């Protein structure tokens, strides 16, 4: 936890124009990523985690989306201000992304080898033959069986797990410093998920890259990340090392999520604890803290003021809450 961050996101806000007016999907989000670290971004649908991930590669569809303020600095260089031409050189070479559904992310009319070779030819200027050899080598490294045969096949001929390996291979082929993985295993079965996550972790060590893992699955975060951001309605509500986040969550939303998730337990419980109510509509958000209507800890101040991330520094992390849980004990239980 020392040295210059590799990537530094500062007060990032992103808006979308919709039929119902302008919606702010990401609101004043700030975080740092250090070289080699795995950062989780967790939250429920609509919390802004995917939009945040896309913005790091400037992949927000525009219109309707727009980065309205803030900066994204990669080794000091602000990506928000960069011309599209320069950004194209960064995508795939410095920052890569893999998506939830590899079937929609891969082009169905080109062979696997063709698509992978394109990345290598564009960024590294390799010849057709060199690029194909590079693609086969990469597929071998991501654990795809029989890569020499697979490069000649089309995406529909592969299983879901194999497609995700191809995506990972493609994303890593130029040795990026940062991999943004948006729900990389959500569409996969649990046994395949285990295979793919192990592969990502192994490759991360091999390539010494940072991984930003966007997921709704708290189990995946617990097993794979060192640090995690919890997002709710476009804002980061808690940012802490994973061990202390799971042992002593401070934001009432984080603790609510951790309590309500169904997990394999030694004995059955009659009913699961729940977070009452539902996520508010982004076009019609409450003032102040956006979680306050579902929160047991809410105090008068929550309605009038917006809590910011260091509103109450507790433990090893930061939390955006005026009345956090476990305020007295900052030490993780583990």
């Amino acid at each position, binding site marked *: 936890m020392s040295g210059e961050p590799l990537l530094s996101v500062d007060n990032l806000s992103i808006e979308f124009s919709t039929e119902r007016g302008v919606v702010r999907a990401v609101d004043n989000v700030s975080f740092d990523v250090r070289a080699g670290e795995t950062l989780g971004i967790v939250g429920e649908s609509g919390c802004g985690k995917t939009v945040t991930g896309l913005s790091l590669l400037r992949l927000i569809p525009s219109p309707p989306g727009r980065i309205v303020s803030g900066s994204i600095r990669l080794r000091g260089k602000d990506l928000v201000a960069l011309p599209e031409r320069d950004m194209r050189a960064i995508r795939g070479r410095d920052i890569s992304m893999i998506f939830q559904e590899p079937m929609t992310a891969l082009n169905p009319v080109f062979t696997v080898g063709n698509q992978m070779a394109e990345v290598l030819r564009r960024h590294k200027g390799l010849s057709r033959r060199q690029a194909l050899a590079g693609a086969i080598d990469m597929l071998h490294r991501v654990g795809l069986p029989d890569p020499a045969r697979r490069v000649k096949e089309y995406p529909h001929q592969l299983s879901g797990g194999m497609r995700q390996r191809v995506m990972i291979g493609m994303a890593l082929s130029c040795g990026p410093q940062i991999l943004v993985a948006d729900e990389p295993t959500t569409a996969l079965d649990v046994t395949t998920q*285990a295979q793919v996550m*192990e592969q990502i972790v192994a490759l991360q060590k091999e390539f010494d890259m940072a991984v930003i893992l966007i997921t709704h699955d708290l189990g995946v975060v617990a097993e794979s990340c060192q640090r995690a951001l919890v997002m709710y309605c476009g804002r980061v509500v808690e940012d802490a090392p*994973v061990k202390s986040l*799971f042992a002593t969550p401070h934001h009432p939303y984080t603790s609510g999520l951790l309590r309500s998730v169904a997990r394999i337990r030694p004995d059955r*419980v009659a009913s699961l604890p*729940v*977070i009452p109510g539902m996520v508010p509509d982004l076009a019609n958000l409450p003032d102040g803290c956006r979680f306050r209507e579902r929160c047991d800890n809410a105090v008068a101040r929550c309605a009038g003021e917006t809590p910011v991330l260091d509103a109450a520094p507790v433990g090893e992390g930061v939390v955006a809450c005026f009345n956090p849980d476990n305020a007295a004990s900052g030490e993780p239980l583990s």
Partner: protein
Amino acid sequence: MLQSRQRRFRRATVVSEAPLLEVRDLVKHFPVRGGLFRGIVGHVRAVDGVSFHIEAGQTLGLVGESGCGKSTLGRALLRLHEPTAGQVLLNGEDITALDAGATTERRRDLQMIFQDPYASLSPRRTVGQTIREPLDVHGIGTPSERDARVRELLDVVGLRPQVLTRYPHEFSGGQRQRVGIARALALNPCFIVADEPVSALDVSVQSQVLNLIGELQRDKGIAFLFISHDLAVVQHISHAVGVMYLGRLVELASSEDIYSSPKHPYTQALLSAVPQPDPTRVASRTVLEGDVPSAASPPPGCPFHTRCPVATDICREQVPETVDVGGAGGEHLVSCHLHS
């Protein structure tokens, strides 16, 4: 194998009275067409000889990976897919042999909750119309009694009466799933197939809907077949759990036994693969190699032998028999050469 299974069933019926639902050697094959004249060139063996029973008021959880046949099995029980072979007995009556009229009649007792609350509700009908439809179809009560019943059902699933005249697109996923549950409850069924009912929902909403299903089961004594790929959710809701692989049940036991002492190598691998929300846990994981084979050409012998970490020669040649390895704690059926 068939004979031994039938013997066991006979023994079971002597010991206890008939279960609410009994499934005997259920098979569902889908034809694969191909070639010049679109002739049948093979079969996808989606469900390949499955037997189990569910007692009144109990939940059987059914787990397995995509393509293992769990959804097909659930649909075949309600004859939404016509079974290829086998029997489904409801209170001792074989419902696979009923004619169309009697099947409609029987569907009062058997209902279904679907995975996708976005696709399973008609966008052109109000919530009131959707919940009322089963009452209209089966001609239950007078129109005013039906209206009263719809209001009562809304209350049961925790929706306000104001939603009656609203359309599905105005609701969140969790609210839609409540509407789907209310519709399934309209005819007072004794058995509900719930196919991945919470998989499309966010964590905080998932627990609300799971609790609702649990309450309904306790209050109304409804039996459930709860189909899910999520082992944590299944453990929470089920009394017994069946594990499916390539169209077959490879293990079936009480929820406690499956989770505390799984016997089949596939069950063990599945359980070890579930990521737990606990960073201090040291994961000792059995990572399975490869993918699930195609159900159109399943491997010979044990269907799991191609991925099994402990497979031996016999596994590649012979289909293992299903045996009961349970002790005093109750039945624990497993289909694996290690235990036969």
